[in-house]
Every structure is written in C-alpha cells, then in structure tokens.
C-alpha cells in the first residue's frame, strides 16, 4: 500500500509539472499578445512603441520564454500568485478569501448527489424496467442535458417570483455566520449536485445490476439472509467502488461547472473570480487560476486512486 501511494504521488508530481507547461504554453505562447488582452486591440495599436517595450520589460515579457516559465514556477512554489492588473488584492489573498466558498459548494454538491443518486439507483436496479426505473432513467437523461447555469438562473427567478426570496450576495465565513453561508451555497450545490446525481444514478444502477447477478450474492440469499441485508451489506459496497471513482472525477468537473453556475447565482466564490478574470482579460490571474484548477483536479484524482486502492486490494497488487 505504501509503495502504491509513493508511486502514485511521484506520478502526480510529474503530471503537475506537465500541466504547468501546458498552462504556460496556452496562456503565453499561443498567438495573442498579453498586452492586446489588457488594452484591447484598439488600445494596443494606439500604444506608443516605447511604452510598449517598457511595459513588456516591466511585466517580464521580453525575457526568454524559459526564464519566464522558471520565474513563474518559482513564484508559485513560494506561494506568490501574482497580482491582478485591475485590483489591489493579490491573487493569493483572493484565493484564500473566495476558495472556501467554492470548496463548500463542491463538497455539499457531492453529498447531495450521493443522497439523491444512490437510493434512486437502488430502487431502479432492484426493479429494472418498472415504472420507477423508467422515471429515474428519464430524469437522469434529462439532467445530463440541462446546463447547470441555466437551471440556476431559473431557480433564482422562480424563488424570486414565488416567494420574493433572493439569496444574500455577500459572503460570510461558515464559522461566523453559518446561516448566511448556507443560503449562498445551497442553490449552486443543488444545481451542481443534481447534475452529478444523474451520472451517479446511471453508473450505480448498471454496476448494481451486474453485482446482483454474482454468485456470492446468490449464496448470501440462499443461506437465508433477508433481501435488504443482502443488498445493503453484500452487494452495495462492491457496487459503489466505481461510483467512488466517478464521484472523485465529477468533483473536479464540479469545480469547473461552478464557474458558470456561480455567475448565474452571483455567488462570490472562486468561479466568479475566474469569470471576472476572463471578462477583464486578466491574463496572469487567469494563468494562475487555471493552474490552480488543474492542480486541484490532479490532486483529487490521486486521492480517489488511493482511496480506491485502500478499499479494493485487487488494485493495490496490480
């Protein structure tokens, strides 16, 4: 187990290095001058040659690319995520202030997706092709097709029209003001959670259907255990292994999905910061945020792999 973890971590480090190169290539080397992004195509052409050169030097953009890359990696290793062109707050401070809200949304949505997805999958798998199963499958296909941000906008409008309710827009921390925080995160969490629940219900259903046909489940039933115990204690734990993997993967996608969803709700989380950076064409903030999202994604995948290896010895010994 220990050697598996070490191997996985070493491999993860390699992936993160690769990811940093990809981010750097996309944000710096692709045609598209950062100055054009900052000043817009019109402002850029009006910029005098001298000023352009001095700005480039000031931003470190006239150095060779490998030096720029090296400096960026060194800054990040020190925890310095740079500064926005348009704001006084450093990016590191912004991440610390806004990150928790997005993390809470993500975890609440995963919790929600399990609470909805798993029971629904059990009902569906125990009576395949019954009306309940068909309803479940219809909704899981439907929720795969609904864009989360649109669902979010509808939810905001619906609450406003029927109850005159609008979630608070400025955040507090979970510790000092849990009630306000909950009001902020519950909407995005439900929207993102239902989207995940659709995937989870689908996978859990097919995985449970397969496991139920296994010999050991029949043995458990044959020795006289009642059906509920067989499902809950014998079949479900094995059926949930692929679901855990999927859920970890989805958690990464939720972080990305929360960018438009947070915009729809006006939630002041990291996703909204990403949106602001994009609409202000703030290349350096964007570069660091994209890298952060990718690192979180990679780390989550490693964690899931380790959890799965811990739960399932077959993987450890491969």
């Amino acid at each position, binding site marked *: 187990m220990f050697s598996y973890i070490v191997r996985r971590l070493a491999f993860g480090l390699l*992936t993160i290095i*690769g*990811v940093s*190169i*990809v*981010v750097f290539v*996309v*944000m710096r080397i*692709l*045609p*598209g001058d950062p100055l*054009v*992004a900052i000043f817009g195509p019109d402002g850029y052409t009006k910029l005098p040659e001298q000023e352009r050169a001095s700005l480039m030097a000031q931003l470190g953009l006239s150095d060779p690319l490998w030096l720029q890359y090296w400096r960026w990696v060194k800054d990040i290793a020190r925890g310095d995520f740079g500064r926005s062109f348009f704001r006084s707050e450093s990016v590191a401070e912004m991440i610390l202030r806004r990150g928790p809200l997005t993390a809470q949304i993500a975890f609440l949505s995963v919790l929600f997706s399990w609470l909805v997805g798993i029971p629904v999958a059990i009902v569906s798998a125990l009576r395949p092709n019954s009306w309940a199963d068909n309803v479940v*499958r219809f909704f899981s*296909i*439907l929720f*795969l*097709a*609904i*864009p989360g*941000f*649109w*669902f979010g*906008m*509808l939810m905001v*409008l619906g609450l*406003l*029209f029927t109850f005159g309710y609008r979630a608070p827009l400025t955040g507090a921390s979970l510790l000092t003001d849990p009630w306000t925080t909950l009001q902020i995160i519950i909407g995005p969490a439900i929207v993102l959670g239902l989207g995940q629940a659709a995937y989870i219900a689908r996978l859990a259903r*097919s995985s449970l259907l397969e496991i139920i046909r296994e010999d050991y489940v029949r043995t458990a039933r044959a020795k006289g255990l009642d059906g509920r115990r067989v499902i809950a204690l014998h079949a479900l734990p094995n059926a949930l292994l692929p679901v855990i993997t999927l859920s970890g993967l989805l958690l*990464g*996608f939720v*972080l*990305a*999905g929360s*960018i*438009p969803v947070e*915009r*729809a709700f006006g939630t002041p989380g990291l996703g909204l910061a*990403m*949106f602001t950076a*994009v*609409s202000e*064409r703030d*290349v350096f903030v*964007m570069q660091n945020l*994209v890298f952060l*999202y*990718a690192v979180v*994604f*990679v780390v989550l*995948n490693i964690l899931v792999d380790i959890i799965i290896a811990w739960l399932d010895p077959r993987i450890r010994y491969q």
Partner: protein
Amino acid sequence: MTATKPEIATVPRQTALPDEPSRWSRIRHWLYRFMRQSPMSAFWGVIAIAIVSVAVLAPVIAPYDPMRSNFRTMTKPPNEKNVFGTDQIGRDTLSRVIWGSRASLTVAFAAVLLGTTTGALWGLACGFFGGRFDIGSQRLIEFMQSFPDLVLAMAIAMALGAGTGTVIIAIAITRIPFGGRVIRSVVLSLKEMPFVEAARGLGASNMRLMFRHIRPQCIAPFLILATTHLGVAIIIEASLGFLGVGIPPPQPTWGNMLSDALNSGLVPPWWLVLFPGAAITVTVLAFNLLGDGIRDQLDPRLRRAI
C-alpha cells in the same frame, strides 16, 4: 433505455441473396431496424433532424432579423407579434433562438469532427506504432485530461481571442483525448489479428495496413464517439458564450443570449432566460438519445467504454 437483442450488431445479417443489395436498400434496412429496436432514439433522432433543419433554414424561418433592434418593442413579454417576447433593445427572441441554433450547431459539429478526427488519427498512430511515440503521446494526453474540459476550453478561447473559429478550436482540443484513447485501444487489439498479420506477410506497407486494413474497423467507434460528444460540445459552447469567451455578440448564440439576459439588470426577464436555455436542453437531449441509439445499434459492447 431500449432493450437490445443479444446479437452483435456489427455482423451484417446474412441475406442469402446471391447479388449484393444496393447501398440505398441497405441504409433503408438499417433505418428500419433502428426504428424497431430503439423507437425512443428514433423519435429523438427525428427531433435532432428537425433542429438541424431549423438551423439550416434559419433565414427562411425566422420572422424577424435577429440583429435589428426595434425601440418600440423593448423588453416585451411573449405576445402575438413576438411569440417569445423581445429583449432590452427590442430584438425578437424567437428569431434569435432560431439563429442561435446555427451558431451552436456549427460550433458543435465542427469541433467534434475536428477534435475526434485528430484524436482518432493520433490514437491510430499510437496504437499501431507503439513504443516510445506511444508512451510520450499517452503522457501528453494525460496532461490534457488533467484539466476540466471547460477550464481548458476557456483558457484556449481566451488566449486566442473571441470568434467562431477560436471557439471551435478550443472545444476541439478538449475532445482530442477521448478520440485518442478509444481508438488506440481498438487498434491495439486489431493489430494482433490474423488478417493484419496476413496483410503484413503479403508485404503491405505500414500506411496500407493502417488505412486500408485497420481503419475500416475503427469507423463504428468513431461514429459513436462523435455522436455522444455532440451534446457535451453544445453545452461547452453555451457555457463559453455565457462566460463571455464564446462567439461575441451581436451574433446570437444561446449562451450569449443568456449572458445578455443576466447583464440586463438584477432581475432578468423570464422569457429571455427560459427560451434559449430550453433550446439548449432539447438539443442536447436529442443528440444524446440519438447517440445512445446509434451506439446500441453499431456496437453494444462499447456501452461501458464510452
């Protein structure tokens, strides 16, 4: 969803007729079987065709010019003249939704075709040649898959600047790894087959082996991949539009219409939110269900893989 018969669908039915049936009758036969075996998918397939026709015929169908504003009818709820209402500067929402289908479908089709084809060719080469080239490629694909799709697409679209072409490229790049992985695994198993050995023994070149002997077997997984990814591509396109890195306004897309609605004030008018989003949902639903049906028909074994 729909019950598939246990027969393997890729094996053509033996017709016992001495002469080959014509191409047209084969297609008709296939369509007939498709409708009988997965009526749900066939139904949604018809809807998908209808949506594509709306996109193609947009200039004929749309009652108004989607870009022209009319200051007499600003922010009007749905009525007899503007069935879906009008936006803040008096543009007809129905016309914009109709024209929006053009942008969404163009981007989705082009991106999926470009991305999946690139990925498939890459996967073909990886699986066929193996060795160092394959190992390096797999690492690179892993790095590409270390980003959530939307984040990667956003970064690329932002770096390249707004426009239809950039959105297509941004979404296409996020589709490459899927094509690469699936086709590579198909090729890996095909490569060891006796018919490939035989062709090699007869002195066929690598190119001939790859494109003449192995490629035909990759068509079914390729088609399945492409159709199942259309829905995802449409959602990513809408999200990019919603986040302001998609096709820029005034050209209407479903995503930037929703973004406009949100920018219009604290409380967006409901008709500006409902209709573009409903269009996205119905379109994605149609393509997803059609894709499921095509997968079940062409190769039910791929159900778990894709």
